[in-house]
Structure formats: structure tokens, C-alpha cells
């Protein structure tokens, strides 16, 4: 089912609502608290256990107000003795929240044990020895190579959350299920500050995962055209360097949504008849409502767009299309918390209005606040960028980043103090 989209007039809402980059912490909280439909999906399920990390080296703090929010990492234990995903990238010292879920349709219990680089084999061997000497199947091996683990086994159809602070030392850390017999093939690799090789050349993961359906095999940047959820059938998925991903709809010539974390799994499509949609690595943190640019005040409609392709000359694909009679080049780049839409409009000689929507924070260094969004003056419209950030990340970003010339949070029902100029009608 499609993500609900707000189709109402944002213009009206903006007039009434003060906003601004200055957005005091409480303004940001108000905003992130009120909408964020995309986040609701990641709330814990009823049968979920929250597990504290057992680790001497990097003790986890219990989440509290003011503490940095951990990055969610979904990890599933699946049939065929495998972790899904079989590998992922993270930064040294990053705080993670593993959302562990046992989806094994063969109904076997599994656990999740993170080990030092190169220690998978030894820990698996120890678990086998323990089993041989009569230990219970779920018993965790005691080994100095173990950094953290789920408290005990996670039963089929159950979930658990494990908070984990990524070690500061770069390396390829293993994760493994130590239920006796499983670990020989059921392990994965956490790449900390070291580049991931191509999936097909990765010796840190079991060979069976070659069949896994992660588009691009974990390579970033990567472009994969596939049927995608909540978009048209001619969609293009893009994994950006880092953790951001987005969906570009080639029929509507716009970014439809962005999500962070894992890219998308196409195995349902690729193994099946071709009717399945790709599965996104996480729920989108932003879903676009419409094509964001207005030329001469005109709102473009479906059918006004002509997709012309994309190029991969830099690190990021640059899409090329016509919006009405205007030729547009658009690339999307990762920013610290979100994405930056970079537009090039050859031959533009008038102002461009960037129409913002309500599910994220928008800003633009070239933009001037205007009714409905930003006005990009004609002189700067040949090349400009638009930063889109998740509401929840905005607060942190705002405190670090120097203020761009204009920015707009999502409309919030609660007024908040703002030193920004009042919205001016163009």
C-alpha cells in the first residue's frame, strides 16, 4: 500500500507557522514528535525484548534524553542458516541499535554474537566443544574474542533489540550464531571503517549469501532499476556512498523518497516471476509529495515530464529530463543527516520556486524563503542545491551546521520562536 501522502496546501500552513533554522531544540522536538509517519513502522513490536549489550569494552548506555540516538540496523535470522543482511558498513565509534528478528520459517532458535576480527571460526569451534560436553544449546561460549551478544537465543517469530557501540578500531568484525551447528554457515561481517569488497569477492561472508538479493551486492554507489514500493513501475533505486538511499521515479522525474541503511533486496523479484516489489532496507524517512520545482509559477503535471536518462560520471548518478520545456539535470548527494538535491537548469532566466513538503526539513543555500518554500533567484537558478533532512535528525544537524541562507522545517502546529525572517510572499 502506498505511504499516505499529504496533499493539502502547504502554503496556507506556512503562513501561520513560524519556522527557521534557528529552530530551537524544543521546536525540533515538537516537529519530530507530531508527524514522522515513516518512523512509526520501526516501533518495537509486542513480543520484542530490549536487550542491554553485554560488553566490558563498550558498555551501552541506556537511552535517555540528550543521549545521541542510535542508528537502527535491521538484522534478520532467516531460514537456511543465514543472517540477512550478511554484511553491512558502519563507522568506528557509532552507536547502533540492532533490531534483531528471527524470521526463520524452519522454526529454529538463533542468537547473535559479535566477535573481534578473524574470530568467527574460533568462537564457532568453542560452541561445538561446549555442546559436545553437554552445555545447553543456547549457552553462550565464553571467549575473549566475543564483544557483544544477544542475551540468549531469539526464538522463531521473536524480536530483540541490542544496543551496541561500534569499536573505535577499524576492521572487519564478525557476527555469528553460536547455536551448535549453525555458526559454520551462519555468520556475517560488520565493516568498520574499512571498505567493503564486492559481494562476490567477499571472503568474510558465507558463500551461500552470493544468492542473496541485495541489489548491487552491497556496493555503493549503485543504481538498480526495479519495481519499487510506493512509486511508479519505472523506478530507479540508488544507493549513495554512506548510508542514504533513494527512489527516483523516471516517469514523474522526481525523487519519490529516501531511506537510510541497507539498500534494497530484489530477491523476491529475481527469484520469482517478476511481480514482486523490491524490499527497502528501512522505511523511508522522507516521502516527496510532488515535483519540487516550479518554473514561472507553473505547477507541472504528470505528462509534462520526459525522462532522458542518467550519467554516472561522478560518484553520483545525474538524472537528465525535461520538465515542461525546461531541461533539468538532478543529482542526489548524501549530506550528514539527509540528502542534497543538486539541480542544474541550463538556460534558465527566471526565478525558480522550490516547493517544500511536510515530511522533512528543507533548506537551500541559494534560496530565499518564499510562499510555499524557497525562491531561487534567476541569477543562481542555473545551479543550486536543496538539502532535505529527516525531522528527527534536524535538531542535531541544526546545532552543528552553520545556517544556510534559508531553511524550512516541516510545518508544525505548535509555534516556536524563530529568529528567521518572516515568510515573505514573492
Amino acid at each position, binding site marked *: 500500500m502506498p505511504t499516505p501522502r499529504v496533499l493539502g496546501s502547504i502554503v496556507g500552513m506556512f503562513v501561520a507557522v513560524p519556522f527557521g533554522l534557528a529552530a530551537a531544540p524544543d521546536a525540533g522536538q515538537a516537529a519530530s514528535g507530531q508527524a514522522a509517519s515513516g518512523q512509526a513502522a520501526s516501533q518495537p513490536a509486542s513480543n520484542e525484548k530490549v536487550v542491554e549489550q553485554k560488553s566490558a569494552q563498550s558498555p551501552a548506555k541506556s537511552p535517555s534524553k540528550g543521549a545521541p540516538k542510535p542508528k537502527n540496523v535491521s538484522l534478520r535470522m532467516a531460514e537456511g542458516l543465514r543472517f540477512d543482511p550478511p554484511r553491512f558498513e558502519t563507522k568506528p565509534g557509532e552507536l547502533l541499535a540492532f533490531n534483531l528478528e528471527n524470521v526463520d520459517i524452519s522454526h529454529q532458535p538463533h542468537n547473535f554474537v559479535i566477535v573481534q576480527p578473524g574470530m568467527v571460526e574460533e568462537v564457532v569451534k568453542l560452541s561445538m566443544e561446549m555442546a559436545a560436553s553437554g552445555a545447553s544449546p543456547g549457552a553462550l561460549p565464553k571467549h575473549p574474542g566475543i564483544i557483544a551478544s544477544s542475551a540468549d537465543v531469539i526464538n522463531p517469530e521473536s524480536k530483540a533489540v541490542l544496543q551496541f557501540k561500534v569499536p573505535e578500531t577499524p576492521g572487519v568484525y564478525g557476527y555469528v550464531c553460536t547455536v551448535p551447528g549453525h555458526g559454520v554457515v551462519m555468520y556475517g561481517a560488520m565493516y568498520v571503517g574499512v571498505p567493503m569488497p564486492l559481494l562476490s569477492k567477499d571472503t568474510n561472508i558465507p558463500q551461500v549469501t552470493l544468492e542473496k538479493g541485495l541489489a548491487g551486492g552491497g556496493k555503493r554507489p549503485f543504481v538498480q532499476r526495479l519495481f519499487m514500493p510506493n512509486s*511508479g513501475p519505472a523506478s530507479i533505486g540508488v544507493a549513495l556512498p554512506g548510508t542514504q538511499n533513494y527512489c527516483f521515479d523516471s516517469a514523474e522525474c522526481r525523487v519519490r523518497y529516501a531511506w537510510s541503511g541497507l539498500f534494497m533486496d*530484489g530477491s523476491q523479484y*529475481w527469484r*520469482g516471476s517478476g511481480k514482486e516489489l523490491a524490499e527497502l532496507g528501512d522505511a523511508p524517512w522522507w516521502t516527496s509529495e510532488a515535483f519540487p520545482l516550479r518554473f514561472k509559477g507553473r505547477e507541472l503535471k504528470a505528462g509534462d515530464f520526459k525522462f532522458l*536518462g542518467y550519467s554516472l560520471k561522478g560518484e553520483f548518478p545525474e538524472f537528465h529530463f525535461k520538465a515542461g520545456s525546461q531541461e533539468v539535470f538532478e543529482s542526489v548527494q548524501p549530506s550528514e543527516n539527509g540528502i542534497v538535491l543538486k539541480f542544474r537548469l541550463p538556460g534558465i532566466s527566471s526565478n525558480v520556486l522550490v516547493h517544500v513538503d511536510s515530511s522533512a526539513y528543507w533548506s537551500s543555500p541559494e534560496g530565499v524563503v518564499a510562499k510555499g518554500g524557497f525562491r531561487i533567484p534567476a541569477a543562481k537558478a542555473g545551479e543550486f542545491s536543496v538539502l532535505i533532512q529527516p525531522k528527527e535528525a534536524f535538531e542535531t544537524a541544526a546545532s552543528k551546521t552553520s545556517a544556510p541562507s534559508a531553511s524550512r522545517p516541516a510545518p508544525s502546529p505548535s509555534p516556536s520562536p524563530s529568529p528567521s525572517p518572516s515568510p515573505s510572499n514573492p
Partner: protein
Amino acid sequence: MQIRFSLYSAAVLTLAPIALHAEAVSAAPAAKAPATAATSTTPEKPFYSASERDAQMGRFYKVTQVKAPAGIDSQVGALSVLKDGRIVAAFHRGDVGILNPEKEQWSIFAEGLHEPLGILEEADGSLLVMQRPELTRLRDTTGSGKADSYESVLNDFGMTGNYHEFAFGPVRAPSGKLYVGLNLASSGDTVHEEVRGKWLPIGLDRKEFYGDWKKASKEAGRMYSRVPWRGWILELDPLTGKSTPFASGFRSPDGLGFDAEGHLVVSDNQGDWRGSSELHVVKKGGFYGHPASLPWRENWGKVAPLDVPIETLDKLRTPAAVWFPHLSYANSPTQMVLIPKTPAWGPYGGQFVIGEMNVPKLLRVTLEEVDGVWQGACYPFVETSQLQAGLHRLAFRGDQLWFGRTHLTWAGGENLGVVEPVGPAPMDALAINLTKTGFKVRFTRPLDSSSVDPTLWKIRRYTYAYHKEYGSPELEQEILAPTAVVLSEDGFTADVTLAELHENFVYDFYLEKLRAADGEKLLNVRAAYTLRRKR
């Protein structure tokens, strides 16, 4: 010259012993459908056992297996030979690989395409790839060996997201124009929430597509076209970028090609409105039988295609030039390419070779035009277990016939291979042409003089229904023997006379009793001519 008359003066030896649908027998079988489409024939026992066949084929053809690049899905959607002799293949997950056959090394040229099913090199070395949503021009502008430009060349056709909306081609006409084929959607599934292109307001209401699909699907048509140009061949002028709808009436046009004279030929798969798999010679504005695509014709009006009487559709359509008799010849024919006129391929040069999905078999096709009507024959060609099933894409590299296999969720195979002829041509029926009184059958070697005995020839005649049901039994079957057989002076051609000829029938030749003058048995003992127009 020898002439010997048959002991049987009557041509008809046996009357259709296994026709299940006596009520369907009529002078215009195409327009009168039997009530059900049950298959009336059980597969015939092959003349050779599989091991015997493999051994016989091994005398004439060598098959070499070629692996797809490591670490990618090895189902081949598209295959072509570059001007420099390298092989280019596109794979199921969207990788485009280039193989240097001498070094046996693959490099990945492009990635991330959506079900690419056709590839064609252009004069400047760029590659045109047909993927589900568009025709894309891939270019390496930096000399890195990888495509960095993915230009969308043709995307103004509709997509519903239905899995069966495959897109095939492109093929290039001698004029330089390009042609692509667009599948119909299948009632095996509904459509996505969002579609690309204008929704056809004729037929089952769109909201029904989002309800109880199992129930609604019965009214959608087994195959349906609800966004523009599904079931059509499109023509693209690569110079102007302008595309034009070219011909309608297709179901699943997996194979597109051109004959040596520049006629566009298109294969299609057995199914609804396709009694058996077919090959069409396609002309601009033509309608080739599957009605789902008709409402996209200009001035069509508001009639749902399934409400049009079969008689009307039958008059509107151009029937297939060649039927591939189901099961006995092909279940699912694929791409056709022209056999090169080289010593190695000998007498077969200039004919089409076509792949087949379900059994390890390549077929040949010959075509002729009689009074403006295209018709012709198909022949089993190379059939050996080494080919494996799923022979989806073909391309010649000199004398090497490269093939790529796929399966998706159907029968088939993976990876690639090469067929090469070894030694002289086998004894085969080379080509069948229609005469006023029967057929001229040309062989690859002179026939033994005993071949003039009509009792050594068996011809089974049957037809297929034109109807909305899936497939068709063989209808109005008769077994015939020639009234006379005359050999040409060189012995290569037999002039076969039949008591009478009927249009819109398959004449299926059983030739196992014939021998070459040198005593050689036929390597392939069958050949099937589709008679559309008498001379």
C-alpha cells in the same frame, strides 16, 4: 528421372483418429473454436532415443559450454556479438557483461538494468539495451571500459507493473530504423497501484484491478493491454528519436529479426489466441491476431476487444506465416537469427535458426511469399542434450552460433554456449516450397532413388483454432500420402504431389523412411509447412 505412382490412389489414408472435437471441424477452422482447448495429442515417441540422437548430432555439431561472469545471476536476457568480435550479454539482474572469447575473460560494462531482454551495438560502439521500462543507450564516454551514460532513447509506452509486460528487441532494419516488441500483461496478476501511461477506459473497470483479483481476472482477458502499446511492435527512428506504433496483435513477441531482404519477422508464444506458437512477417499497420492490443488503434471506438465477434477479428488479422506445432516442434520459440552463408554452415546459409525454451533444440525456418501472403516451414535443426533447455538468445560470431539460456519461473537453463558445425552437412530436409499441386522438398544431399515411392512419405495435416482459450488441440487431422513423388535430376529435390491442398493447415512431414543416395539417414526426420495461400 523416375516416376512411381502410389499403390494407394486415395490420398487420405486415415481419418483423424484422435480429433476430440468433431463439432469444430469446418471449412473455416480459424473462426470456429472448439469448446475447450484440451491438447488432443500426446507427445509422439521420438524417432531417435536421446542417447542415439546425441550421438548422431555429435557427428555434425560441437557444443561448447560458456560460463556467465562469476557472482552474477547467469540467466541471459540479451546476447549480441560486437564488431570487434567480443560477446556482449545482459543478465537477469541487470548486468551487462562483455566477454573476450580468446582470453575467456568477462568484464562488466553496465549494471542495474531492469530485466534487459535485448541488446544491439550501434555504429559508434554504443549499446542499445531494451529493459522493462525503456530502450537505453549505454555509452562509455571516458574510456574506462564501463558505461557512464545511460540515455533513455524510448520510454513513451505504458507499464502497469504486471510481471508479464516484458519488452523485447531492438532490431535494426536495413533503413536504420529500430523495432521493439511489448508484451501484454497476464491475468496471472493484477497491476501496480501506480502505472505509467494512460489507462485504457475500455474493458474491466480499473478499480476492479485492486479488488478481488481472482474473481476480476476472469473478465480482464487472459492477457490484457491496459496502457499504451502493450501487444504492439513500435518503430523508432534513432535519428529523430520519434517512435511510432507499427503493428498490433502480439502476445509475447520474444523474438524479433530481419530476413535477408529486410522483412521484419516476429515470433510469438502459444497461449490465448495462439493455437500454437507462431512466426509472423510483420508489416506496418498489420494486426497479428491477439485482440487485447486493438483498442490502441486509431479510431477504434469503445468496443472491448473481447466483445468483438471472432469472425470480425479473423477478417482483421494476418495469420501467422509459420506455426511451430506445439510439443512436437517447439513449446516456446525464442529469437531467430540468419545463418551465415559460409562453407561451414553450407546449405543452411541464409535461413533462420530459432531457439526454444523447453527442450534442448534449435529449429530452422524458411519463408516464402505466395500471392502476397507469407508462409513457410519450420524444421528441427540441432537437438542434443548438451544444448540444455532455455535457448533464449542467439548470435553468430563467424561460424560460431552463440546462445544464452534463461528460465525465469519457467522451464529453461542458465549460462551460455556455442554450437559449431563439424564436418559436412548432415542429411536433412533443407527447405519446403509450395507448388500448385503439392510441395517441393529440397534436401541437403541427393535422395536415394527409392524415395519416389510415395509410401515412404507420411504427411499429417491439421490446423489450430483461433480463439480466446489457451492453445488449441490439433484439429481436423488427416494422414496423407503423396499421389506421386518425382525426384529432380540431381536428386536433391522431391516434387511431392498431393490429391488436394487446404489453406490454413499445417503439413507435417514424417521423413524417417527416406535415405540419401549415400545411404545416410536423415538427422532430423520432421518438417512442418504452414499453408496459408495456394498457388
